[in-house]
């Protein structure tokens, strides 16, 4: 085995990566130290370098015989690797058991598992190396077993004699343990299974099946007995007198099987066998002590079990009934008091068969083992001197009811369950257990135990009417569940009489139920009388007094029936009880069978008694099992779930003294990990109440804020007053003045424009105020003229009319002089416009110019070009042979588009622009940079261009007067506007409105 340094999971030899966490594993044969990474030889427990532990505490160091990984999940001491020893391969173990590795187990279970594995390995190696990892109490137990425990004869071939069973393998494709189960199925009704046991059957079930005392093989048993943990051996030794039932949820397969100590030779599972074995032999739980010497089990059934497939067969046919005089019964009392054993165990061993006095010394989990065993109504109360679980094994009647529901239960389990029924009717307890004088009801003991333990305990006894009430609601939600699950859930606790009647019909709905589940579900409820008769409380109460951790399982070998009083054993048990067990015992001892305290009383309905918190960690089948458990055993939790509850949460469980407080508080949690807890998380309404402390806003108040607040307060103190008229709003007179001013300005402009038409202002003023056509500067237009004049013949000029009729008064003269020049040069003209109205303007201007000059010049109106700059680019690409571009732009943006696109298209096309006076300043950058070869700006520029060229009608003598009038009117209007602005600025400086506005 290669143990993962990360998670501790055991992997097969040769594995490169961990099966659990994927961590790369060290090379086979060496163990990498998790602390210093030093490679240590295989088998080392501690690192050679740093001394760190190389393998998890629960596992043994690598052994060459190991071939099975650690089990995870549900765990009870079971054989993990039987291949190396005498049993069958571990593959025969169900997956859920095989996967029950250490991580999901409580520590004590992990230790048990590790011990069992080690013990199993050591059987072949004859080395008690496993004891190294065992706690002291376990070591003590194991040490005391061989010497103290007489070996009982095995009813079936012990695991050590697997050679005989190996010849009887039924099927190879099916896991052996299952095939064995099938093989035993036909024998269910006969209760005398005769199928041979598979050679590959794990040892533990065989050992369990060996609970039948009829057939024994002392030599084999003796051989393997040395490998049994001592404490288990001791348990086995007590088995004849202590009816026990292993934890069902933890050991669905083996947990319920009776184990004979004599057969627990090679594996630690034997203790289970011993625990379960006496179950059918438990007498009816009556206050009267059970007869000391019960007639032994039927020899016929026991002998049949030899030929049966497995131990379960024995169980089914009642072979569990142990002979009355078992060797364990004859154990001397002196042996019980081994020097290494704690007192409580000694006492327990001494009184194991007596009363419930020893029950208190038994850990709860052992007590729960009994929960899975039926309690026969007529059986004597055997729980007197045994743990709770052990006491509960005395319920064969309940076992007898279960077969009705477990028709699909694995055969081995079915048979195991079947052992209950014959035990109730025919089989006599193999060991008589003295009934306690004052038997306590089981219900009380269940209530006193923790929830998860209570769940493991047998169903509380219910009367017919209670059963009817509890059974029907449980059957309702099963409509959508699988049949087998529904059957599980619907399994009602029944009394012995009813169970006997309902066995046959009840088997029908369970056809789909897994065998083992059905067997588990068949946790026998106890009748009320039986429960009350079980003196568990006595065994539980002393746990409250436990002060010192003790070794949890220290059951002495079969002790003399005359047991010591439990009170005498308690102090010792307390001292040696481990902490975890102490906490459990305290919880179990909390005398609060009602209310929201942790132990859910058995009187609660099944749905309330369940503990879904545990179910979260349980596999589905276990959850289903829990739900389907009878009323008495609703809390079918496993030790795993309990182990995962953190300590702090466990500490929150109500203890003694808190009951009253809890009763007054809100209801306890019934679900989740907080089940049984109350007032731990107080319920707070989500709405309607303020959560948390009231919010407080810190407002920093400055002096300014205070001043404003004071002003506001002062204004409020003044009260309402008559609002004063708003100063800024114009009155009627102001409106009139504004309108008069507008008209005056308009009149001034009109007058200024009309004066030149009526008079020669220059002559009137004797001052050259207005320009004359002959004296206009022509410098700016010469470049444009030169550009057009230098065009080669036959060139095409693209004239862009980027203006609309709004600017036509200023732009048309420019277009006119330029078109006439182009016509005079004989240049073909293509007109286009980036303005939707520009094409019409172009058409009109072309018609005016061409009509007066020549109509032979090619003219093409390209119309409106959409896309602005994109249209410009397109025009340039369509006409690459254009010799000149004339842009008549009233807006500088239009000129910019042309400048940019011409430069971008790498066309060496000259561009001249006819601009409005307002656009000319914004076009200066392009003009100064030379990108625009020449400009004709405004009316003045057009007149200058006409005067300069002499080609335009504007330059003719007939147009001189008209052009002069236009020029003078425009100039005078300019001056008028300047005058208006100046007057407005000066008047504003002295006007009241202006000052008020500025203020």
């Amino acid at each position, binding site marked *: 085995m290669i143990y993962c340094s990360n998670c501790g999971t055991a992997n097969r030899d040769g594995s490169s990566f961990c099966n659990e966490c994927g961590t790369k594993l060290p090379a086979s044969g060496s163990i990498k130290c998790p602390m210093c990474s030093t490679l240590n030889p295989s088998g080392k427990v501690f690192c050679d370098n740093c001394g760190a532990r190389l393998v998890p505490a629960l596992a043994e160091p690598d052994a060459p015989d190991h071939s099975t990984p650690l089990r995870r999940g549900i765990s009870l001491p079971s054989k993990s690797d039987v291949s190396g020893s005498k049993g069958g391969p571990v593959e025969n173990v169900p997956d859920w058991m095989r996967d029950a590795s250490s991580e999901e187990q409580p520590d004590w279970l992990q230790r048990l598992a590790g011990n069992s594995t080690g013990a199993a390995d050591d059987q072949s190696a004859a080395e008690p190396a496993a004891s190294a990892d065992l706690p002291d109490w376990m070591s003590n137990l194991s040490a005391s077993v061989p010497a103290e425990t007489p070996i009982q004869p095995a009813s079936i071939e012990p695991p050590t004699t697997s050679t005989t069973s190996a010849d009887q393998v039924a099927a190879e494709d099916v896991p052996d343990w299952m095939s064995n189960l099938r093989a035993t199925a036909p024998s269910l009704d006969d209760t005398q299974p005769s199928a041979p046991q598979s050679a590959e059957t794990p040892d533990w079930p065989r050992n369990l099946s060996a609970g039948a005392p009829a057939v024994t093989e002392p030599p084999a048993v003796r051989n393997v007995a040395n490998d049994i943990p001592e404490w288990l051996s001791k348990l086995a030794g007590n088995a004849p007198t202590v009816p026990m039932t292993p934890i069902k949820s933890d050991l669905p397969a083996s947990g319920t099987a009776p184990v004979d100590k004599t057969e627990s030779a090679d594996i630690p599972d034997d203790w289970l066998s011993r625990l379960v074995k006496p179950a059918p032999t438990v007498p009816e739980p009556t206050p009267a002590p059970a007869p000391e010497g019960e007639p032994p089990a039927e020899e016929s059934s026991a002998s049949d079990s030899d030929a049966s497939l497995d131990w379960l067969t024995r169980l089914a046919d009642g072979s569990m009934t142990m002979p009355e005089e078992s060797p364990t019964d004859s154990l001397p009392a002196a042996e019980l008091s081994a020097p290494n054993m704690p007192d409580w165990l000694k006492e327990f061993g001494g009184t194991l068969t007596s009363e419930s006095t020893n029950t208190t010394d038994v850990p709860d989990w052992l007590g729960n083992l009994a929960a899975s065993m039926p309690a026969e109504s007529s059986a004597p109360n055997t729980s007197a001197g045994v743990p709770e679980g052990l006491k509960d094994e005395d319920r064969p009647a309940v076992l007898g009811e279960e077969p009705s529901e477990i028709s699909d239960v694995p055969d081995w389990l079915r048979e195991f369950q079947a052992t209950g029924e014959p035990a109730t009717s025919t089989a006599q307890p193999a060991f008589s257990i003295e009934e306690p004088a004052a038997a306590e009801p089981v219900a009380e003991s269940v209530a006193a135990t923790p929830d998860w333990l209570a769940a493991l305990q047998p169903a509380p006894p219910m009367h017919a009417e209670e059963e009817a009430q509890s059974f029907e609601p449980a059957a309702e939600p099963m409509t959508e569940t699988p049949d087998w699950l529904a059957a599980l859930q619907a399994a009602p606790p029944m009394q012995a009489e009813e169970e006997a009647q309902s066995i046959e019909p009840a088997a029908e709905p369970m056809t789909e139920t897994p065998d083992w589940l059905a067997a588990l579900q068949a946790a026998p409820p106890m009748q009320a009388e039986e429960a009350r008769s079980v003196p568990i409380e006595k065994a539980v109460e002393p746990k409250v007094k436990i002060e010192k951790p003790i070794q949890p399982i220290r059951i002495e070998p079969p002790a003399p029936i005359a047991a010591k009083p439990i009170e005498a054993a308690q102090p010792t048990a307390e001292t040696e009880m481990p902490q975890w067990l102490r906490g459990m015992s305290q919880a179990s001892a909390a005398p609060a069978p009602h209310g929201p305290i942790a132990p859910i009383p058995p009187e609660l309905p099944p749905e309330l008694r369940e503990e879904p918190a545990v179910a979260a960690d349980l596999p589905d089948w276990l959850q289903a099992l829990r739900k389907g458990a009878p009323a008495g055993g609703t809390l079918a939790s496993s030790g795993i779930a309990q182990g995962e509850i953190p300590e702090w949460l466990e500490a929150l469980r109500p203890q003694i003294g808190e009951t009253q407080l809890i009763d007054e508080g809100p209801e306890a949690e019934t679900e989740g990990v907080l089940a049984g807890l109350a007032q731990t998380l107080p319920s707070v309404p989500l709405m309607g109440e303020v959560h948390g402390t009231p919010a407080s806003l810190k407002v920093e108040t400055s002096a300014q804020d205070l001043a404003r607040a004071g002003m506001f307060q002062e204004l409020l103190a003044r009260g309402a007053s008559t609002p004063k008229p708003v100063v800024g709003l114009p009155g009627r007179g102001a409106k009139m003045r504004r309108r008069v001013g507008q008209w005056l*300005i308009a009149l001034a402009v009109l007058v200024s424009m009309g004066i030149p038409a009526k008079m020669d202002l220059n002559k009137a003023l004797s001052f050259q105020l207005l320009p004359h056509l002959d004296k206009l500067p022509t410098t700016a237009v010469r470049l444009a003229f030169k550009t057009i004049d230098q065009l080669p013949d036959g060139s095409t000029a693209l004239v862009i009319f980027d203006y609309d009729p709004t600017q036509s008064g200023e732009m048309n003269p420019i277009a006119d002089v330029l078109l006439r020049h182009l016509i005079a040069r004989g240049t073909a003209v293509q007109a286009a416009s980036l303005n939707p109205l520009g094409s019409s303007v172009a058409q009109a201007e072309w018609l005016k110019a061409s009509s007066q000059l020549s109509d032979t010049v090619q003219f093409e109106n390209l119309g409106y070009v959409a896309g602005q700059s994109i249209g410009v680019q397109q025009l340039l690409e369509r006409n690459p042979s254009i010799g000149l571009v004339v842009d008549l732009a009233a807006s500088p943006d239009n000129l910019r588009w042309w400048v940019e696109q011409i430069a971008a298209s790498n066309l060496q096309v000259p561009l001249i622009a006819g601009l409005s006076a307002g656009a000319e300043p914004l076009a200066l950058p392009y003009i100064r940079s030379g990108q625009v070869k020449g400009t004709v700006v405004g009316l003045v520029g057009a007149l200058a261009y006409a005067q300069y060229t002499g080609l335009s009608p504007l330059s003719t003598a007939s147009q001189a007067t008209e052009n002069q009038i236009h020029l003078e009117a425009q100039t005078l209007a300019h001056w008028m506007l300047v005058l208006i602005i100046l007057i*407005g600025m000066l008047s504003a400086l002295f006007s009241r409105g202006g000052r008020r506005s500025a203020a």
Partner: protein
Amino acid sequence: MRRLFTSILPTVITALAGLVVFLSFLLPALTDWRASLVSIAVIIAAFAVVLGFVNLILGVHIQRIRQGQGAFYSLSLILSAMLTLGVLIAERLLLAADPTHPVSTFIFNNIITPMQSSLGALLAVFLAVAAFRMLRRRRTAGAVWFLLSALIVLMTQVPLPFAINPDGSAANFLGQLFYSARNIVDALTAGGMRGLLLGVALGTIATAFRVLFFIDRPQSE
């Protein structure tokens, strides 16, 4: 699927088209691609004009008529638009042989041009009134600077025959002052305009790259 057509596909098309047009100025081989894309853009732009017209009629003025706000003017606009559109369509259909388009030319010369010229003339009056009242309404430094700038530009645009010789030289002090003012205006104007153009160019480049590299996706939802 909706995201494909509303976000992914438009973004990819925009980026590819932009990259092709951008690279076409560097790689002559892509000139034809650019011409095709520009043609598509022009068609889309022309369609946008039609769409704008329809939206103006239906989305704006019809709503105004329904709401009763300026219904008269909106109704007049719609009727005029429909009349002009009908006349032009009829002219193109009935007088297709006459390239001078006499009806549309008549409408343009006798209706559109006088009306828009009149509006342009009124604009001068409105500007004069606004300048006159500006400091009365808001006596701020900005208002003062605005009016001073307007005065200077107006004066530099006005021909000064008494100060400027026909050859363009300054005839007197006023002429020199005129040219000084003109140079100041030109410098300030040119500098300011160049700065604006540079800013526009940089902004255009940044925006173009943001669009090309999918940073801005104005075309997608």
